[in-house]
């Protein structure tokens, strides 16, 4: 259940009431934008995805049957839009190189680290997420950043709960390998 969003507001928004839809936007835009940002891993793209998510929501709300929670439904649309976008704009840049660059930038400027901590952490996560595929990224983001349970992730992505486990395991193995590679390169 989303705070401040009653079934009545959902029904009004489904009938095209823009003010009710704005209330839903206010309650969900934070996690929609953040999930989109972490899956597509680019701020401009994330804004475009978030816009597409809300336009989809506005048109599909008539079909919302209250069988799942609105939050799960919104997460599902967000992840689907973000994954579609990521597949369309699949980038061919060197992912590990980018992560290494971010880590080394942090190592090179230890004095500035206090001021840059937030920005550096953000860039490090962004670069680290680039080292795994979008499906794995979606699972890592929903679990690690959004704090969804395995069951909620399975419902959101419409996949088996064991598939959630497998994706998380492979993603984390890949993340550990990337981190180790970069750490070894930094030492040498």
């Amino acid at each position: 259940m989303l705070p401040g969003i009653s079934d009545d507001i959902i029904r009004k928004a489904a009938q095209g009431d823009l003010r009710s839809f704005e209330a839903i936007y206010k309650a969900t835009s934070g996690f929609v934008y953040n999930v989109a940002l972490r899956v597509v891993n680019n701020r401009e793209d994330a804004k475009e995805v978030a816009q597409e998510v809300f336009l989809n929501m506005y048109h599909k709300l008539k079909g919302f049957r209250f069988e799942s929670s609105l939050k799960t439904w919104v997460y599902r649309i967000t992840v689907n839009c973000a994954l579609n976008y990521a597949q369309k704009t699949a980038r061919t840049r060197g992912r590990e190189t980018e992560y290494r660059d971010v880590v080394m930038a942090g190592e090179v400027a230890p004095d500035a680290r206090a001021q840059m901590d937030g920005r550096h952490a953000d860039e490090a996560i962004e670069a680290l997420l680039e080292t795994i595929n979008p499906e794995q990224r979606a699972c890592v983001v929903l679990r690690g950043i959004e704090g969804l349970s395995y069951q909620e992730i399975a419902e959101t992505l419409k996949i088996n709960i064991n598939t959630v486990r497998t994706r998380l395991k492979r993603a984390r193995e890949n993340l550990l390998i990337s981190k180790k590679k970069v750490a070894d390169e930094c030492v040498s």
Partner: protein
Amino acid sequence: MSACHEFRDIILTDYIDGELDKKVKIRLEAHLNVCAQCREFVNEVKAQLVVPFAQTPRAVVPEDLWQSIEEKITGEGEQAHPAATWIDRLVQSLALPRSAPVALSFILFISASFWVLHNRQAAQVADNDSGEYAAYVLDSVSELAETGNDSFGTSIEQYFL
């Protein structure tokens, strides 16, 4: 070593995510008490894969996002029903009630029906007139043929002939 391998998969998923079954958790923690390598692995996974994501700063939603969404929705509505919008505007500007377009359509329908019926009657009258004329011409021609007199007895005829 095989126990370590089995537990490492669980550590990477259910254990660090707090999803582990109670019985398996007791077995795993008993193993961790005796296996330094797995303890180290747990610490590494938490430090490298749990803490950084949990502490990821939340990005601020762009301020103009709602505005662009609202514009798109409003624009779509106008594109989908341009005629309706035009009629709505006309009705509003004339301060007519919502039923005015329906009443107007009804009046137009009645007028068109009346016009069609009236024209059909006029056409029938015209048909009758032209029939009478054709009969008169045929009668005149046959009369001429019977009498063999091809003169019409007019003054113009007499002048020329």
